[in-house]
């Protein structure tokens, strides 16, 4: 069994055509996503944070590179590993953190948690805990944009595991047939829990999966935020012009286990160490300093800003009220009297 080697995939960062403001935003969002999850990990270890979570450490360039192309009213669907997608779509960190702590001031009022984060005011239609479930939903949002005659585009983020779900194929077929403005992003972190692509997919060049549906595809270095951004720009522009869907594969690597404390013993240390050298944030910093597009001071200022933001988010979350036992009743349909039996 072989895992993709970074040296076969890596492309140099290319800052051409990208202004300083944009580069700062990309860096800011990547650092936010990284630090948010690092803090979550720490909080799980040290406090009574309930539930579970799936970290996307090392995958930040995919979420940020793609979502940074989008307008505020464009739509995104995400998966169980979705903190970064939300952050890249500017869902407020304090509301997300409060949701993680199951607080009433959480973005989903403490009813959804890590796997169902969403913020409709930001076009973030939801992280879905069922693998592949967001794919037809993003496609439907694209259909809706077409029917309503808006210029909105929808993006669906999903992992390499999701391409083996039926809805992936059904959605791609319909989106191509109807030329829907949707971009499908395979965030290929090379593992579906314990299973590498090669053991679960009959083709390993995943962007070719669109061929059967007449959908063009491209595979990019997913740890290179400029490459992701540029590929996503082409795909989104194409969709916005009415030329139909696109399948973008971003190859990255899941630096952590599948969930919270899962040790990922099905892979070897050398592999993890090798990939850690190609960390997307590290690569961005090195290339930005080397080319002089951003300064050391400029990057540090962003890192400090994020540190404060996360601290403030934790403080906001911890000061929030815990979800009450009866809170869920607000979200049961008014007419549904089945919970009123008084029997539990």
């Amino acid at each position, binding site marked *: 069994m072989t895992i993709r080697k970074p040296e076969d995939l890596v492309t140099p960062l290319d800052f051409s055509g990208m202004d300083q403001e944009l580069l700062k935003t990309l860096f800011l969002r990547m650092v936010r996503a990284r630090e948010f999850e690092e803090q979550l990990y720490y909080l799980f270890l040290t406090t009574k944070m309930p539930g579970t979570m799936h970290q996307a450490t090392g995958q930040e360039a995919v979420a940020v590179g793609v979502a940074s192309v989008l307008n505020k009213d464009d*739509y995104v*669907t995400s998966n169980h590993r979705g903190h970064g997608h939300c952050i890249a779509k500017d869902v407020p960190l304090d509301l997300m953190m409060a949701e993680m702590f199951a607080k009433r001031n*959480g*973005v*989903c*009022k*403490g*009813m*959804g948690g890590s796997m*169902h984060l*969403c*913020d*409709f005011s930001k076009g973030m*239609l*939801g992280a*879905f*805990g*069922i693998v592949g*479930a967001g*794919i*037809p*939903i*993003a*496609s*439907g*949002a*694209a*259909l*809706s*944009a*077409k*029917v*309503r005659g808006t210029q909105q585009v*929808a993006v669906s983020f999903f992992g390499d595991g999701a391409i083996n779900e*039926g*809805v992936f194929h*059904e*959605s791609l*077929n*319909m989106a191509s*047939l109807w030329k829907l403005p949707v971009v499908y992003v395979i965030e290929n972190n090379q593992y579906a829990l314990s299973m590498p692509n090669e053991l679960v997919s009959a083709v390993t060049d995943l962007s070719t999966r669109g061929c059967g549906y007449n959908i063009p595809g491209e595979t990019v270095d997913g740890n290179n935020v400029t490459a992701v951004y540029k590929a996503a720009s082409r795909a989104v522009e194409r969709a916005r012009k009415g030329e139909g869907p696109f399948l973008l594969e971003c190859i990255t690597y899941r630096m952590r286990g599948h969930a919270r404390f899962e040790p990922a013993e099905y892979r070897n240390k050398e592999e993890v160490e090798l990939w850690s050298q190609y960390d997307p944030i590290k690569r961005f910093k090195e290339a930005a300093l080397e080319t002089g597009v951003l300064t050391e001071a400029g990057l540090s200022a962003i890192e400090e800003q994020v540190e404060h933001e996360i601290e403030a988010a934790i403080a906001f979350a911890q000061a929030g009220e815990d979800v009450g036992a009866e809170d*869920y009743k*607000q*979200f*049961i*349909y008014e*007419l*549904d*009297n*089945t919970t009123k*039996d008084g*029997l539990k």
Partner: protein
Amino acid sequence: MRQLSLADAIREAMIQEMRRDSSVILMGEDVGRFNGAFHVSHGMLDEFGPTRVWDTPISEAGFMGMGIGAALTGLRPIIEFQYADFMFCAMDQIVNEAAKLRLMSGGQASVPLVMRAPQGATGRAAQHSQSVEAYFMHTPGLYLAMPSTPYDAKGLMISAIRSNDPVLILEHKLLYGAASPGGGKALTDQTISDIGSDVPEEAYTIPLGKADVKRAGTDVTIIATLIMVHRALAVAAELEKEGISCEVIDPRTLVPLDEETILESVKKTNRVVIASEDVARGGVGSELTAMIARKAFDHLDAPVACVSADNSPIPFGPAAELRVVPQISDIRQAVYQVLKD
């Protein structure tokens, strides 16, 4: 007043709402060019065009999910499943997404969509005959309507389209009064009289959660859905000649359930028969029996009798199908039984 078939009534409801509200769209297999397998969407593609009436590929999970995505972003889709049996292909999207989004999102999301599906045994064997209501009654987050008359069908359909939460409307093929997929003559059931009923031309709504007393009576309460309403009415008419007075209640929506109307009737008659075409185990009969036992146990003079399909897939052979699915004679027998105790 005009008489309409049930299929005509549903179509009229959809057309009136689509004329009133440009966010309403129709999606499903063969709903456009073919006018719908049971002709329910006849002529709608011609009137509204392909951006309002979407002929989909055979991809139930896919177009159900797309309906959800559209519902989350400003449209009000009506999703037709060609047969209720095919809904199982879309189970994840219905149960895990449509039904749960309002709660999971902390009330940010609403999913204003309608699912429509024909069900019931009509000689089409095990995979085109099921009665699926129990699966969806069991799923919090869905409304479930089951119209037994054209009048109810139009009013419930308009309420469903205007609902901000997902509504499933299960229709019985034998009640449509419309031609079958082969295009031949209308499916009919010899055991029931004409179900055509008066339907006002203007739009009207029937609130979700309001049962209808289809026939008033004093000796036995028969709670029935879809075609069983008509079989129960046939039994009531027969037994009247024997001096037995049956009250026939159609809940019209199983979720929400109008417990009040049912319990009021139980307290009056003290004897209950529940007639439903779904299978007995874990079904509508079991659920209603449990509700009545919890809330009106002291008022019962006899155990509740459930008339349901046998715990079997629907067999093809006509004699076997007839045996598995509840008939008029089964309901009559049940009434005698509850009166005997």
